[in-house]
């Protein structure tokens, strides 16, 4: 009972924080719209009422800023959840959502789609999504032998495949010509030009996947003790590993497909939350996901509030890395 009470309290608090960040974020931009006005417009849209705000403000809030915030929240949510699972799964503090080559695969798919002279059905996100899943599945196959997938082999196979795909991406970029700028921009991670459609599709993949991970939170806890221990406590180790790997890769792939490669959210947020709530995944997983959502919305607000918009991936790394180093130096981050 203790755990569920603590979980509810944290989740409640983080939901409120996310709502507050979203509200402030909506108010920020080239056109300044008051927080009260934003709330008014959002509530009116939600409840089907009317708002006194000018039509231009309504369009800015409902069609430009809110879809972007929603997408940012979904992406941050997915990356932080997947990062939490990967760190636990690999029992390695440096594990991030892309550790099995998901981001490298997505980048390859996306850059290929940008550079290729033919148009891809369903466009760039579909190519990135397909590339991500193909890469992850390839790494899994490379690391599996005789029905077992040792995590160390998986880690190394992931690094090898990421390096190889990095070479492929570099080659494509060298030959990209006029498409270079677009490709680079995608690689840096971005949330601009987001639509409600993208946000809805991403959420449709992310939320069920997340619920699936949540069901396995207790198994993930036991897995942290080591695979042999987990086996002796009744966990079907290989099946659970396959499932966790597949679902968190799906989460990451859907985030990367719509927003490009956004680093550090999936690495730092789970660490911070582990410091705050402890290692129990029943509470760590939902709190990390919500904190990831709030973090990405906040950093994206920074990214677009300057004179010229910069890719959000730059901001997450620029903000996240010093914070992470601070934690490292104060020795509060330990290997998961």
């Amino acid at each position, binding site marked *: 009972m203790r755990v569920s009470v603590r979980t509810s309290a944290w989740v409640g608090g983080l939901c409120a924080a996310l709502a507050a960040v979203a509200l402030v974020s909506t108010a920020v931009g080239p056109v300044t719209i008051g927080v009260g006005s934003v709330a008014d417009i959002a509530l009116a849209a939600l409840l089907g009422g009317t708002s006194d705000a000018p039509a231009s403000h309504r369009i800015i809030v409902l069609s430009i800023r809110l879809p972007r915030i929603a997408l940012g929240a979904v992406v941050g949510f997915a990356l932080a959840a997947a990062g939490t699972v990967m760190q636990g799964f690999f029992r390695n503090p440096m594990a991030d959502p892309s550790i099995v080559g998901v981001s490298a695969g997505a980048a390859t798919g996306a850059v290929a789609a940008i550079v290729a002279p033919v148009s891809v059905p369903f466009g760039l996100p579909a190519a990135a999504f397909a590339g991500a899943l193909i890469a992850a599945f390839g790494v899994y196959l490379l690391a599996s032998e005789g029905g077992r997938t040792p995590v160390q082999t998986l880690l190394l196979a992931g690094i090898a495949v990421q390096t190889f795909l990095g070479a492929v991406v570099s080659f494509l970029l060298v030959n990209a010509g006029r498409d270079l700028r677009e490709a680079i921009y995608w690689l840096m991670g971005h949330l601009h030009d987001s639509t409600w459609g993208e946000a809805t599709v991403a959420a449709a993949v992310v939320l069920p996947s997340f619920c699936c991970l949540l069901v396995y939170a207790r198994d993930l806890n036991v897995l942290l*003790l080591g695979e042999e221990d987990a086996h*002796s406590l009744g966990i079907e180790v290989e099946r659970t590993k396959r499932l966790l790997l597949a679902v968190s890769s799906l989460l990451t792939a859907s985030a990367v497909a719509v927003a490009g490669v956004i680093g550090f959210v999936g690495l730092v947020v789970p660490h911070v939350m582990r410091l705050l709530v402890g290692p129990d995944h029943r509470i760590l997983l939902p709190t990390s996901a919500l904190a990831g959502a709030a973090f990405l919305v906040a950093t994206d607000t920074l990214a677009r509030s300057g004179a010229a918009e910069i890719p959000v991936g730059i901001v997450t790394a620029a903000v996240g890395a010093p914070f992470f180093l601070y934690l490292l130096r104060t020795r509060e981050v330990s290997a*998961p």
Partner: protein
Amino acid sequence: MTDPDDTTPAIAVDDVTVAFGGVSVLDGVSTTVQSGTFVGLVGPNGAGKTTLIRSITGALTPDAGTVEVAGERLANLPSRAASRLVATVPQSTASTFAFDVRRIVAMGRTPHVDRLGSPTPADHRAVEAAMDRAAVTDLADRPVTEVSGGERQRVFLARALAQDAPILLLDEPTSDLDVNHQVQTLEILSSLVDEGRTVVAAIHDLDLAARYCDELRLLADGRIRASGPPASVLTDDTVAAAFDTQATVVDHPVTGTASVTAVAADAGDATGHVHVVAGGGAATPLLYRLDTAGFDLSVGPVGTADRDAETARALGADLVTVPPYAPVDDAAQTATTERVRRADATLVAPVALADGNLSALRIAAASPSLVVVDGGPVEARNHAGAAGRRVDAALRDRGDVVDADSVVDTVRAVVADTDALTRDTLPEADLRR
């Protein structure tokens, strides 16, 4: 908690062979464990104890052979069902995640809790009871990363208790424990066996294994070398062969169960015959040292039940005995004189001086190659009055007086000198009355 069919052994290991990278670790191991018994796996490092346990839990698939637990092949059961049958305490669990102790113990309930459900009050009670039994309740709210190694071992024992399985497998459950907690842990395991559970544990400490286990399996080089009740498994010969050392097995004076003392594997290179005048256990540490150094030993005269006599017998030394507490008779004097005469060196242990053994000490004092171990002021050991003082003075006068730590070196030197002397110059002792 007992097996429904009493004729089915709890664990049946049949001709199991395991090799890692071409190196054989288990080589055709077969054994059975009956329900409700406490079986200890003993043997040297690398004997295959851990591998055997992992083969039984199913963490490892043998290259050949079968393992059945309660008549079932564990590998064919779903993990959940298997883990309700067998609980395992691993050798070392390097948990780097800071779960608190209660949470770790609660993980033992994993096989009993539905994935979508939450733990019931019965589960919570089982967790608290397990912590209480393993004496880790005080640690319940501390992170497992911050408790000591020995405490962590008890935490994982508690987890296995919470798992509530009829069969427990433990790999070195006492390796990190202090002597008090070693005994406590084994007492817990014994009480589990009394309740009808089956316990198989790899145990490093042979004495504790002998004390608590109903049966032992002695492993060495991937095979079971001996199997049965502790007294039949732990003999000088089996232990020496398995551990590749010289060992002596005697009954422990307090517990009455087998107690093993290992001495260095390789006998030293020293040669020569040393006669030791012993008694009351004063010579026991000296005898071990001299034996280890490689000397041939004769000992006596000592009472048949004397501790020194027991040591001498365990080391295979030539022994002159007299009935307990009896004075040294003529036969024993003759036998002692003969041995002192033959010896390359004669060593007098810091024995008590009593009317009964003065004659033996006089024989020793006459030896031309005498080493006397300093026993401190004579008054403390003398129960023979002026005669005792005279004998002690003579011994000190005629022999090299050394402390116990330099005995081996001194004896070595004396033996080397003796080689240059004739040995049949034993004078008729002027001290003889």
